[in-house]
């Protein structure tokens, strides 16, 4: 069992005065909330890592280490009525939407009380009450689906925006093209965050596409495209906010490319031996959480104690979450046979 402080990272190794992040109007409290979610994202994944090493996780474990700013910053720009389709590396986005750590832990451990009751794993669950659509493994497929969410929202006069993510690798799928083109032609309120972390499993971007910036592709659909520093949570937040507001105002879809880096292998089993070590070192210095800590401290938005307290709170919370998740039993076998169809009045 984790104990208080166990998962504290080293705090802002060197406080560089003047760590420059994007300009924002966000007040101190909300910036601290961003910090909270990024840290929560990482600390939940650290706990999941422990559970994995203890053999408690069923199947693979996927980490978003180094990409927390992209998930958290983009999700934080959404309103309650908006709908999001996270991918497997968007745990942070889900936490912002109100997903509890225990839910994800139980998913990974295939427990009976997990949101899917053990029927599916990892982040593969959704809940429209919280504006969350579950992804499927087939990359790209969620893009047209979220375009349809946006279309429906407009039809229903709900004034919502649909947002989803795609990796650099996922941009090569037919659904990326069909979905984004359909969204553009129908001018629906849709935002696509292309999470450019340099790798698709072992495949570098250079073998995935012949261009440097995924945002270039926006022009192919007649929509705005923007490149943001994906390790600057404020930059991601502001860019997403702008795109979301444009979409809400009837301006149609936006493609945002968030440049970041996958700090671990594709999944826990993958040591990423194919990634040049220098890349890790280079990006370690750009760690989005440490950069944000330096920003907060350097600009007098928070004291070390305030940050330590946030971390300590999370740590205590996660102890309870882990305990709860571990205590949940495995699902009863008969559940395997239930729930394929929604009951229907017009069908046997």
């Amino acid at each position, binding site marked *: 069992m984790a104990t208080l402080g166990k998962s504290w990272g080293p705090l802002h190794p060197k406080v560089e005065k003047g760590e420059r992040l994007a300009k924002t109007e966000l007040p101190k409290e909300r910036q601290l909330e961003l910090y909270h979610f990024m840290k929560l994202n990482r600390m939940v994944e650290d706990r999941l890592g422990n559970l994995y090493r203890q053999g408690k996780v069923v199947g693979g474990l996927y980490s978003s280490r180094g990409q927390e700013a992209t998930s958290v910053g983009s999700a934080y720009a959404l309103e309650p009525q908006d*709908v999001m389709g996270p991918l497997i590396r968007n745990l942070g986005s889900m936490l912002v939407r109100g997903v509890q750590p225990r839910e994800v832990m139980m998913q990974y451990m295939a427990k009976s009380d997990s949101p899917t009751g053990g*029927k599916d794993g990892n982040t593969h669950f959704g809940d429209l009450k919280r504006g969350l659509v579950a992804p499927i493994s087939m990359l790209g497929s969620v893009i047209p*689906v979220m375009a*349809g969410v946006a279309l429906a929202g407009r039809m229903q006069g709900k004034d919502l925006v649909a947002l989803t993510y795609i990796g650099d690798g996922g941009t090569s799928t037919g659904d990326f093209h069909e979905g984004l083109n359909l969204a553009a032609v129908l001018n629906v309120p849709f935002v696509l965050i292309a999470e450019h972390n340099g790798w698709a499993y072992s495949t570098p971007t250079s073998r995935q596409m012949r261009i440097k910036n995924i945002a270039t592709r926006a022009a192919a659909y007649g929509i705005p495209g923007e490149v943001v520093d994906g390790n600057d949570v404020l930059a991601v937040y502001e860019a997403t906010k702008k795109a979301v507001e444009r979409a809400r105002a009837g301006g149609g879809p936006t493609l945002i490319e968030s440049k970041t880096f996958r700090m671990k292998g594709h999944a826990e089993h993958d040591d990423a031996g194919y990634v040049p070590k220098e890349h890790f070192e280079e990006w370690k210095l750009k760690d989005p959480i440490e950069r944000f800590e330096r920003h907060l401290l350097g600009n007098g938005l928070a004291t070390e104690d305030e940050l330590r307290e946030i971390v300590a709170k999370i740590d205590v919370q996660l102890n309870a979450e882990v305990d709860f998740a571990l205590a949940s039993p495995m699902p009863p076998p008969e559940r395997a046979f239930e729930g394929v169809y929604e009951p229907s009045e017009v069908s046997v």
Partner: protein
Amino acid sequence: MAPVTYIEAVRQALWDEMEKDERVFMLGQDIGTYGGAFRVTSGFLDHFGPKRIVDTPISESAMVGAAIGAAMMGMLPVVEMQFIDFISCAFNQIINFAAPNRYRWGQKVPIVVRGPAGGNVHGSAYHSQNPESYFHHTPGLKVVAPGTVADAYGLLKAAIRDPNPVLYFEHKYLYRRIKGELPEGDGLVTIGKANLAREGRDLSVITYGAMLHVALEAAGRLEAEGISLEVLDLRTIKPLDQEAILATVRKTSRVIVLTEEQTTGSVAGEVAARIAQNAFEWLDGPVHRLCCPDTPVPYSPTLEEAYLPNVDKLVAKVRELASY
């Protein structure tokens, strides 16, 4: 009411459901101004407006994907495939997104995917397909294939109201070749219920779609010879009405499953397998399939005629089996 054609029944069902329920809307290629390649939706754009009659780019996967998203939001989308053959381009969205959603995370996906299926119109390999056997395997889907005017109407209304993903395959050969009365009132036809199209004593023909009419014509012809055919129209392919299938087998003890599909891996095979497992003791003879040969659908009329089951082929098969 005056009798209407099969395609008019399809059109009327869409019209009535759109009138009745604001959540119903359509996605498709050329369904707006043009009214669809077969004119199923002509007049819809003027009446229902562009918000509910959505012309799309040539993107079957995105059309179905968008329908899934809209359905999760509480809408009732109906996707038209210009020809059902192009459903192959939306295969992944249908079997991997629409179908398992309810099981995986409890979210229903009430979409309908419909379009003109079937051959005998010299459409060759890509405008003649019967894709039901590509989908009857997938848990979470429902598949219907009406063979009459009333079923075309009642099953489409049911498909739209059903809270699960339903594939509705309309047979283009029947579009303007058969007429019938539209039922008074709602005219709903329950999904999953077969229809005993003709009572008989000697042998059961289990079929659906355009082949229903081949079976009925053969039944008439064989009556003269003193052979009494029972004809069961499945109407729904998934879920199969196993009770009705077993009932007719128990009654006649001889069965031919007649479908317009290549034989191997056909829906007819699934029907035969269920009979072989659940009505074995009632059988007086082998369960025969009369389907198409295992070839793509050929283009030339002489070839397609050789390819398709027809009354002569069925009559011959019945004689063979009756004398078993």
